């Protein structure tokens, strides 16, 4: 296993159709599971392909362990990659697919067989070794692609949206399996996805990319609890965070946020920063799960629509002129057209500068 270091990496395209990456630096520790996440066209796949050597850098350096690799061919970088569409060789059996790299490396046959069988055992595809990719289901192909990466025992594993072609149920299963596999192999892993749920559940560290830049990086919990920008706040979490305009007012208890007619106390941690901005309008972010329907409600709203999700009900309403959603316990959620009393857990309110989009 090895560290991966991207140093002031840049990528510009002549036709400028794809996203350009400018001066991007990222250090990935040995054994770490890093997920690059972002919307389509944010440059995440380009970054992965640059680490793999499938895409050339316009600027900067890439290091794997003690070696500078950005001038090396993919085969010289000691990496393995799992592709979105699996990229299994259709003319080879599962066993041949998995052993292809080892055969090229001139490894002895008994050792090749041992490794392939061991990986097949771990991935539960031992019974499929003589089949061809065409005869496998999507989930099985996915496992073979992972097996092909595993047998080579590379310094770094690269995953390029490996689960996006699977159905929701299988995706959940494979997610758990990838996590389990990483715990077992402790391999340095760079994983690209556009699915924030995948990023949150898999990663040791999530790197959020936006427009070819790193928007924020940190543990899933950090990103969820303390988003650095409005973009991150909106990207992480499902259903998405509600954004509302609020005026900072001073009360006896300290700074508070005025939302329409009602006032909610500001988070204690932000009191100092807000005290300087009394009278200004900011944008606040409230996650649907941070609305409460019990206790003393701060707002009375009319429910536009209520969606029963099972353990919770997603209630849609308009607050301070903005369409909002709240996750409430089904027994406390009002029906469509009825009035609903809600309050906000003030400790969880995120506050953004409306001009820069950065958290206060």
């Amino acid at each position, binding site marked *: 296993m090895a560290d991966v270091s991207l140093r002031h990496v840049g990528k510009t395209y002549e036709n400028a159709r794809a996203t350009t990456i400018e001066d991007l630096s990222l250090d990935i520790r040995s054994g770490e599971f890093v997920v690059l996440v972002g919307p389509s066209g944010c440059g995440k796949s380009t970054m992965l392909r640059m680490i*793999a*050597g*499938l895409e050339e850098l316009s600027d900067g350096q890439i290091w794997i362990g003690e070696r500078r690799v950005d001038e090396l*061919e*993919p*085969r010289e970088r000691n*990496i*393995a*990659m799992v*592709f*979105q*569409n699996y*990229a*299994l*060789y*259709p*003319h080879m059996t599962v066993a041949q697919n998995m052993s*292809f*790299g080892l055969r*090229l*490396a001139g490894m002895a046959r008994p050792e090749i067989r041992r490794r392939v069988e061991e990986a097949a055992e771990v991935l539960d595809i031992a019974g499929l070794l003589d089949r*061809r*990719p*065409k005869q496998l289901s999507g989930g099985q192909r996915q496992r073979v692609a992972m097996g*092909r990466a595993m047998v*080579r025992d590379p310094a770094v594993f690269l995953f390029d949206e490996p689960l996006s072609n699977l159905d929701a149920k299988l995706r959940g299963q494979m997610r758990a399996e990838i996590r389990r596999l990483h715990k077992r192999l402790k391999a340095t892993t760079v994983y690209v996805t556009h699915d924030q749920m995948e990023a949150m559940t898999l990663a040791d560290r999530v790197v959020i990319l936006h427009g070819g830049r790193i928007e924020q990086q940190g543990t899933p919990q950090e990103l969820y609890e303390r988003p650095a920008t409005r973009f991150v706040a909106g990207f992480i979490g499902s259903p998405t965070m509600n954004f509302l305009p609020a005026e900072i007012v001073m009360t006896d208890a300290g700074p508070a946020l005025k939302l329409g007619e009602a006032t909610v106390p500001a988070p204690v941690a932000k009191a100092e920063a807000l005290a300087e901005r009394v009278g200004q309008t900011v944008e606040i972010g409230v996650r649907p799960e941070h609305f409460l329907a019990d206790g003393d409600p701060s707002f009375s709203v009319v429910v536009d629509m209520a969606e029963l999700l099972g353990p919770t009900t997603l209630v849609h309403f308009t607050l301070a002129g903005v369409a909002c959603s709240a996750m409430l316990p089904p027994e406390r959620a009002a029906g469509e057209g009825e009035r609903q009393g809600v309050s906000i857990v003030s400790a969880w309110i995120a506050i953004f500068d409306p001009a820069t989009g950065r958290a206060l």
Partner: protein
Amino acid sequence: MSTSNTLTAAPARTTARARKPATRRQKRDWLFAAGFLAPFMILLLIFQYVPLMLMAKNSVYDYSLLNPAAAKFVGLRNFADMIEYEDAAVSFGVTFLFALGVVLTVIPIAFLLALFLNSKLPARGLVRTMIMLPVVTSAVVVATMWSFLLDPSNGLVNGVLNLFGIANQPFLTSTGQALPALVVMTLWQQVGFGAILFLAGLQGLPPELTEAARIDGATRRQVLWNVTIPLLSRTTLFVVVIMTVFSLQAFAPAFLMTQGGPQEATNLVVYHIYNTAFIMQQAGYASALSVVLLLVVLAISMIQMALLRARWNH
């Protein structure tokens, strides 16, 4: 278990459906399909299948174009003659040799050209135009041009050879060189078509497969050998069949450049059929030769179909 159940259940359902009378919509669809197909099918019938049947009929008659009324039924005599006399064997032999030469040279060169055209190297557009030009040029023009080029006394090719100190070569007038010369000319003419077919095949390959192989540790040559070439087997087979069938049907070079000579060294089957029917006035025997040629071409196509279905169906 559930799989076998569905498998046995499926045919029963199909037969049940087949018994139902066609709905109005199905009838309308059929009518539409027939309407679209009719113009082509009628032309095909008149100009292809009726002459084909006449040919099959003529192959069992002794028959001359000068006096068709005197046609005489001879059974399989014409086919027996093909075995008894040498001309058919020689002509088919020459043709197969010609086809083999064309296929063996076109395939590798067309493939290399396609690799070049598929790369990011400069001058691709120029090369593409250059190799496609002979393909779209009339076979008669090509044959005439090459007759000048290969002229034994003052042809351009001999001129170039002279520059390297090599004496004039007889080319089309030599029993040893005539057929290879025709092969080279056909290669020149057809390699562009082969390259375009290979190029289409190459561009149809998912780029991830080559990328995966490069990451797996393959050098560019190993990628070519282990991934690209095996995955192009269907295209290759297609090019082989197209080139074989084309070579078996070649007529212009033999007719315009060598008249089948010298000493039948380039007596390609189609030219031989033409000669037999229209010069020697043995239309029955020529028909029998045509029937055999048709069966050979048909067999090659069917082998191709079978191979494509059974193997390389990734």
